[in-house]
């Protein structure tokens, strides 16, 4: 089981369950984006939605995380009714991919493994991911799709990136720990209840 190839880990496991998890993850992303956040700035919220790709990534790999994020942002736009912002969807997708890399550096939440050095790597990927996704990818696509001015996107990206990093570390790490613990030994839903 150990020597799963890197490529396979990146692509993730694809079956009915993956499709459903991504779908429900994306729906939750949309819900949280609209209702579960603290607004700082338009298009920029201290949103808890970004935790979803982390969890999806932890369980299914970065590509499913990417898709969940991309679809999630599109659904958020759909619920919000503020038009479609594919530049942000793609940026979020890329961020989802990067923060969803967990299995690649050995943080196997499914098997209850999440140690301190994993947390450190995780924080680093969050910072890099945000910088790359919103510093490079989103502005790139903004100009490509909407011909928008880069300065605006940069200001937004900066706030968005900082907020995301905050959420991803402050909330993300405890949640990853909780999930890892939950999965650590869950065979025993044993029936014997001693009075």
């Amino acid at each position, binding site marked *: *089981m*150990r020597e799963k190839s890197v490529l396979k880990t990146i692509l993730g496991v694809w079956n009915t369950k993956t499709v459903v998890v991504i779908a429900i993850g994306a729906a939750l992303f949309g819900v949280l984006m609209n209702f579960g956040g603290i607004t700082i700035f338009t298009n920029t919220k201290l949103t808890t939605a970004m935790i979803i790709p982390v969890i999806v990534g932890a369980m299914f790999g970065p590509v499913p995380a990417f898709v969940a994020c991309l679809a999630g942002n599109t659904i958020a736009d759909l619920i919000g009714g503020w038009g479609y912002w594919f530049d942000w969807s793609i940026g979020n997708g890329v961020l989802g991919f990067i923060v969803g890399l967990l299995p690649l550096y050995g943080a196997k939440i499914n098997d209850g493994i999440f140690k301190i050095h994993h947390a450190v790597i995780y924080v680093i990927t969050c910072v890099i991911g945000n910088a790359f996704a919103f510093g490079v990818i989103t502005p790139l696509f903004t100009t490509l799709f909407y011909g928008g001015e880069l300065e605006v996107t940069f200001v937004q990206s900066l706030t968005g990136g900082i907020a995301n990093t905050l959420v991803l570390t402050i909330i993300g790490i405890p949640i990853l720990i909780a999930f890892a613990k939950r999965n650590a*030994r869950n*065979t025993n839903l044993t029936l014997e209840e001693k009075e």
Partner: protein
Amino acid sequence: MGMIKAENLIFEYIRRDEEGNVESINRAIDNVNIEVNKGDFVAILGHNGSGKSTMAKHINAILTPTEGTVWVNGMNTKEENKIWDIRQTAGMVFQNPDNQIIATVVEEDVGFGAENLGIPTEEIWKRVEESLKAVGMLEYRKHSPNKLSGGQKQRVAIAGIMAMKPECIVLDEPTAMLDPIGRKEVIQTIHELNKREKVTVLLITHYMEEVIHADKVIVMDRGKVVMHGTPREIFSKVEELKQYRLAVPQVTELAYELRKEGLEIPKGILNIEELVEAISRIA
């Protein structure tokens, strides 16, 4: 002819650590032998964690035996190329109605299974209509499932299975999340399908009242089948049932208590009329 047959069935949930070594083994089903005939209505009782759901998942080939064999209409569930035939033969309804409805319109959800089978469009429409009628939900065909009550949603789920024309339906606690009226609706629907469409039914439940009309009751305890017989036979063994963390319907309990007090009341009273009859006969 047997619809379902389990022979020396053993199933173990195995947990492995990082290196892939076995960390723990949980034997959820322990050497079970059962046989269900075509057209039967069989109920399965058992405490939480007794292996009922694990058993049910074997019939639909969602799980395959660790040891032993399960046959569904003569097909061995271990044969990979039969898996879709098996799933079409034995449909499955789950506990939470919300978690098994896929589409946002009732009729589309009912058609989902039939679409997967590659059935032509016109035929799907016909089947959807028939199955919705069979569960009494035809007038809701254009509704959104979110606006239905729990019992109605569960009936839609049953219709979805019916549209695949299965010969057998396995229901895993279909009434657990419903209120009494919803529960009654669902149980009635299942009985009707059993009688009218001759569908073999396997019903898993924690509600004793729901099994009194079954043909046969199976009681599970820690992965083993510990009792089986008609409802009357099963419910006449009040003490034994209690030992397995189960109970009997309130009338049965009352009859049992009266009997203990020395009244001449037959064992295994199942409904109000029987008890009233029995008491009238004494006086």
